[in-house]
């Protein structure tokens, strides 16, 4: 890229917004690829570029890879194989010697911030410290969703307009000196005019703005997101990155005026070595160190994936559950936390059958709880639903927490409250520490929609519209949605008497990232409403009649039951049980016992990674009680470990993975190639894999790689800013990304997608995906393989083609039962990568 000779404000802001973090406010936390701005590049090129540009650390440290190699976390055979593929057989030893022994300069010298650093080095002024605290406060006050008692005056106006009005009318200025005040009040402001005062040379404007905005990427990012999607805030705010930059430039001018008077010269007049300033966004050359790190990293990923693929390929004949006497069928989300529950369920009752599909179950809508003033979206983030589902007849009153009352911050009522409720809070604290129980301050998945409420699911009159949204679905809309889900998952006959549709959600307290714990396919909300809606649809006689004409015959005796699985507490809640026939009710009671048992064992398996539950060699229900407790403890920063360790992702029949133990690392999408020879439903099934599963995986990946710059740091000192984000302490920048407690045991490996179908069909489907989705596959943001349904031959998707792939031969051990393995598994004493990698169990055959 050449240095642009003239400053094009519109283009620069547009590009800048593209690079800034794109995380929504806390209530809509949705996982996405942290480096989405570089998705047009190959994965390793993108990493290298992000490191050089912004200083992000995108790989493990060289010494960490070497330690992994020493400890066996990186396999010798895998490394040799990768090196020989890339460097040629004759160079293997030479290059491996480099990998293991060479000294490299591993310091990172990012390009960002170089220009603005001149304020410090030439002018001896710490501009960030002089401007940022006030800037952040004003921004936070303006965007605040309900913490402050005195809301931003004229907060209904745009950001800059509100500031201007305030500055014009107020007896006290926001600024120290008159110049910035005059400029703001006069309203004659343009970014380039202000930059002329500060920087001088037009060719450097662009770099200056990048330097400036990336010095607080959290705040700039949220402003950019709110500018594009103002509806993310319930209390609407009108702000643009442009406004933020104008105000920040004014603050900078003011700070310089205060220090030097109005006579200081623009920065470029004092730059001696200006020609040396490289264009910020220019291509980043690849060094030998980059090659070394890439090789190490790929070897790290394949040290695990080689076993995964070997097991998939070498397992004995697949056994399908084609029994006519299935006890029940259960559908779950493709989420990895649900996949492991399926394994326990199938263990507890071998007669059952499980499926998975994206957890919004193909029904996209806005949900309005009773008395809710707003709508909550219940489908993947990119989808914009046209439907509204309303909750009625809850007969529940929502509880308040008086200690969180804002009145305690007023002077006189605060005086009263501290002397009355103050003493009550001592008791509350006591009980919270010794007997933690649910409290109104927590996020509780079962409370999202009340069990005994009613929903408006069916639309009988298309004129029934509220705010442009149709209330409920028509019969045809219902039928097509149900058919899509069933066909995608391959459940078109052999219906069991009861089909459970399990949504999932999570429960936690003292957890600002609570929406990241819920269902990503439901925009970070519990999937209970979706599960209940799809079950209602499945039970609708008219819908069944339409489906029957399309060849799906759901027997009259079959009933769908909506349910919710709480991933933190490992509890299940069932909806509309009263609609079950007497026979099915009987069966349901039996199933509930089975499911409860599976939840117990599942909780026990999860517990092995919670070091604060020291003894897991106990009965599952005992360990489960400890696990459940975590969700209500104020002092528990890890109520669950969410998607940590997520790695392989299989799209295919359950039989393909059923007899392999993947240690809760796998995510599954039910798909049967036999019911879809053309790949039409495969296209649908692949829809959420890249944005949702790779989004989760890549966010964990990068948050783990650099928790300071791409993650949110430790959550222990978090301070909630305006209900939209977190800062690490009293003030400072917003911290997008995941807290260290969520990613510390995660092995940063890219997703490995394995699709079961004929290669030509898969290739056709992949190429049909929308470009933004396809980029993930093409640019290796995840590994993609096809497993031939008949020969189990593997092919890898590389540069738009499928090439045959053979894993290095290895022996996969067989274990009789998960329990002893889990009980005796290594428990990482630290969060060093060598320890956490060792904590992962290898791939086993279970049969």
């Amino acid at each position: 890229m050449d240095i642009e000779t003239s400053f094009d404000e519109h283009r620069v802001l547009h590009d800048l917004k593209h690079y800034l973090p794109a995380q929504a406010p806390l209530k809509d936390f949705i996982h996405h690829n942290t480096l989405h701005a570089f998705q047009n590049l190959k994965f390793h090129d993108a990493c290298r570029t992000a490191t050089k540009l912004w200083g992000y650390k995108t790989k493990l440290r060289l010494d960490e890879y070497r330690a992994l190699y020493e400890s066996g976390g990186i396999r010798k055979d895998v490394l040799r194989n990768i090196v020989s593929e890339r460097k040629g057989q004759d160079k293997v030893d030479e290059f491996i010697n480099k990998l293991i022994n060479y000294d490299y300069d591993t310091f990172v010298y990012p390009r960002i911030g170089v220009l603005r650093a001149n304020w410090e080095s030439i002018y001896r002024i710490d501009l960030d410290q002089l401007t940022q605290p006030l800037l952040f406060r004003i921004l936070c006050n303006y965007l605040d969703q309900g913490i402050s008692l005195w809301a931003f005056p004229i907060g209904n106006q745009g950001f800059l307009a509100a500031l201007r009005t305030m500055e014009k009318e107020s007896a006290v200025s926001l600024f120290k000196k008159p110049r910035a005040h005059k400029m703001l009040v006069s309203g004659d402001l343009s970014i380039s005019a202000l930059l002329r005062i500060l920087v001088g040379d037009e060719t450097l404007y662009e770099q200056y703005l990048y330097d400036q905005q990336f010095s607080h990427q959290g705040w700039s990012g949220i402003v950019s997101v709110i500018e594009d999607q103002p509806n993310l805030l319930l209390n609407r705010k009108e702000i643009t990155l442009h406004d933020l930059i104008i105000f920040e430039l004014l603050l900078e001018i003011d700070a310089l005026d205060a220090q030097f008077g109005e006579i200081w010269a623009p920065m470029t007049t004092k730059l001696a070595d200006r020609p040396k300033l490289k264009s910020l966004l220019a291509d980043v050359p690849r060094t030998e160190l980059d090659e070394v790190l890439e090789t190490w990293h790929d070897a790290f990923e394949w040290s695990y994936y080689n076993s995964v693929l070997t097991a998939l390929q070498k397992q004995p004949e697949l056994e399908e559950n084609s029994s006519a006497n299935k006890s029940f069928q259960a559908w779950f989300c493709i989420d990895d936390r649900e996949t492991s529950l399926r394994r326990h369920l199938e263990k507890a009752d071998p007669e059952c059958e499980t499926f998975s599909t994206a957890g919004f179950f193909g029904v996209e809508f806005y949900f309005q709880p009773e008395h809710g003033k707003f709508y909550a979206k219940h489908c993947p983030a990119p989808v914009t639903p046209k439907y509204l589902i309303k909750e009625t007849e809850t007969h529940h009153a929502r509880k308040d927490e008086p200690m969180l009352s804002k009145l305690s911050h007023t002077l006189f009522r605060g005086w009263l409250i501290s002397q009355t409720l103050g003493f009550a809070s001592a008791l509350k604290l006591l009980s919270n520490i010794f007997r933690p129980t649910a409290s109104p301050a927590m996020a509780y998945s079962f409370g999202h929609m009340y069990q005994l409420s009613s929903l408006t699911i069916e639309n009988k009159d298309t004129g029934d519209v509220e705010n442009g949204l149709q209330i409920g679905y028509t019969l045809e809309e219902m039928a097509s949605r149900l058919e899509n889900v069933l066909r995608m998952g391959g459940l078109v006959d052999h219906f069991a008497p009861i089909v459970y549709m399990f949504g999932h959600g999570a429960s936690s307290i003292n957890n600002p990232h609570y929406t990241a714990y819920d269902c990503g396919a439901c925009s970070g909300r519990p999937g209970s409403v979706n599960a209940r809606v799809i079950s209602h649809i499945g039970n609708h006689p008219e819908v069944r009649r339409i489906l029957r004409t399309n060849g799906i015959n759901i027997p009259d005796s079959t009933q769908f039951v909506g349910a919710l699985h709480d991933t933190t507490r490992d509890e299940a809640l069932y909806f509309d049980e009263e609609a079950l026939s007497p026979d099915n009710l009987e069966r349901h009671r039996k199933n509930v016992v089975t499911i409860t048992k599976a939840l117990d064992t599942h909780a026990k398996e999860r517990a092995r990674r919670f070091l604060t539950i020291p003894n897991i060699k106990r009965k599952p229900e005992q360990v489960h009680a400890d696990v459940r407790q975590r969700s209500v403890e104020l002092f528990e920063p890890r109520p669950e470990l969410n998607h940590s360790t997520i790695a392989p992702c299989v799209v295919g029949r359950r039989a393909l993975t059923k007899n392999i133990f993947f240690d809760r690392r796998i995510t599954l999408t039910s798909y049967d190639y036999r019911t879809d020879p053309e790949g039409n439903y495969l296209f649908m099934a692949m829809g959420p894999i890249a944005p949702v599963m790779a989004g989760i995986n890549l966010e964990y990946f990068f948050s783990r790689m650099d928790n300071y710059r791409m993650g949110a740091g430790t959550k222990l000192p978090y301070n909630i800013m305006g209900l939209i984000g977190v800062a690490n302490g009293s003030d400072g920048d917003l911290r997008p990304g995941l807290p260290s407690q969520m990613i510390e045991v995660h092995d940063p490996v890219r997703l490995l997608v394995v699709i079961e179908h004929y290669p030509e069909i898969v290739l056709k489907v992949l190429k049909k995906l929308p470009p933004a989705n396809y980029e993930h596959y093409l640019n290796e943001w995840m590994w993609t393989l096809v497993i031939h349904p008949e020969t189990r031959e593997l092919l890898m998707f590389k540069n738009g083609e499928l090439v045959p792939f053979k894993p290095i031969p290895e022996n996969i051990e067989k274990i009789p039962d998960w329990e002893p393995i889990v009980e005796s598994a290594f428990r990482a004493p630290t969060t060093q990568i060598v320890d956490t990698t060792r904590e992962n169990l290898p791939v086993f055959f279970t049969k």
Partner: protein
Amino acid sequence: MDLMFASLLQYMVYLPLVGFTLSLFMPASRERPIAWLSIATAGIYLVCAILLIAYWLFLWDFHSYQFTVLTLYESHDYRFDISFYFDKVTAIFLFLGAFLSFLVTIYCQNYLHRDSGYKRFFNALLLFYVSYNIVIFAGNLETLFLGWEILGICSFLLVGFYRERFLPVKNALKIFTVFRIADMGLLFAIWLNHHLWHRNITFSELLDSEMVWAQLQEHTTIGIMISLMILLAAAVKSAQIPFTAWIPRAMEAPTPSSAIFYGSLASHLGVFLLLRTYPFWEHLPFIVALVALIGLATSIVATLISYVQSSIKTQIAYSSAAQIGLIFIEVAFGLYDLALIHLTGNAFLRTYQILVAPSVVTYLIREQFFKFVPHQHVGKYGAIGKLKYALYILAVKEFYLDSFVYVVLWNPMKWVGRKLDGISENSAFSFIITSSSIGVICILGREYLPAVLTTAILPTFFAFVGLLMVLRSFTERKNAQFSWMLIVVYHLWVALAVTFYEEANFIELAIYLGGILLSGFVGNATLNQMRIREGRLDWNDYQGHVYQYPGLALIFFLSCLGLMLFPITPSFLGVDLVFTYIRVEQTDFAIILALSYILVGLSLVRMYARIFLGPHIKTNHEIPPRSS
């Protein structure tokens, strides 16, 4: 009976100290033993506290109780007693402290799980209990000062707990600065007290209202000065105007330590100090009025500021400070019991609120979802608008309270220090040699010099030159060893200055200098090691070397503590001793010493922070951004 009470009381005093000392020897990788030791300490402490309070309530009948444990130093005109005292105020603070520390320690066991500073955190927490304990049991100002000073260091350690990030370190330094001012206030009060009473006065003696009254009639100015200094210390600790702005900035540590430290216990210690010394200053209407006024101003200003806070912890911090302002008023009006009830309730409430602070996202967003009423923004114009917007902007800018300390203290010091930039390493060396030779000659020949010179002018002069050394050290940014040596030289000069006094004797000087020379030597050796490994230490910005050299960082930190006369070497007695030599009319000498006391502390802690804390300069691993 008496004996039992006394021995129980003694156990209470030593208990946290034992826990703290043991905790230093725990292996850092073992979380459980560290946590259990802390919980055991806090648990036993709570049980003892309840026993003690019950005993005092039912068998001791609310009497106050004073006893001296040991005399650290005694000469013909000076005693340093470690003395303890128990009364209603102690009982309330004891229960509050024991109850909350116990709960918070349990809370931290899991909360801090897997934090790399697990051991460091519990060490600091236990040290905090030690200091809190000393303060609430203290029977005289000297003992109280001991705890007070440790508390300042604890604050520095806990606020700067996330030492690899910029803002916590910066804020820790800021807080240390204001706390150091409070410490100086107490030190000054001790000095004046010494001259007022000519002996060590205990808190129980202050209850003799006739005696106090008589003494104050005679020495009203000293009385007012003492009270002002005590009020200064109290206002700082309780975040009252004009020092309020430190309290939101203290919210950098893990949530439970913010809760217990700044939400409750530490921030109410200012009130404790006022209650403790109330029998003294209640006779001075001016002081009573001032206490009420400060409380009133704080309650109004802090409430306004808390109204515009859009982050949860700073909002709680300011509203807590506002309530403490009201408590100040209650104390001023003599509403003793009301103040005690109010402060207990406030401490419990704020601790709880900070502990559940991360839940407000869930709670308030849900509340907003179900109860949202769009805010009716009414544009205000004219005089009302002018006032309203002005108030809003002032509140957002915290009424300039944050920059206050900078403007009145830091900037002038820096300005003077920069004027001294001319003193380079070479010229300083020859200057030190020549002038100290002159000093030694003067001392040797002091019999031949006029008395006014030896007792008044020369000591002050030498102390003043010492102050200049400290100022020079304060602004030095390039050569750490030079800066370090200047502080050592400062102490030598103070020693030189007091040698002019007849009362000065060899033992006292040895006590004073012993610890200083030791710490000076060790610190210099550490810096030398750092220079060998890292080249010349340019500490214009934070270097973060603790990442690579945690051991050297610890040694250097201890040397800093030694050199700032922290109670880890015998030298800490020295500073009190030196002060006793100064005659009451030599206010200039005392002011110089007090200023140097603040500056030495700042200079050393800043040197430590700049060299060892903050984002690491080496970019071969993850480095936090400067804005975090």
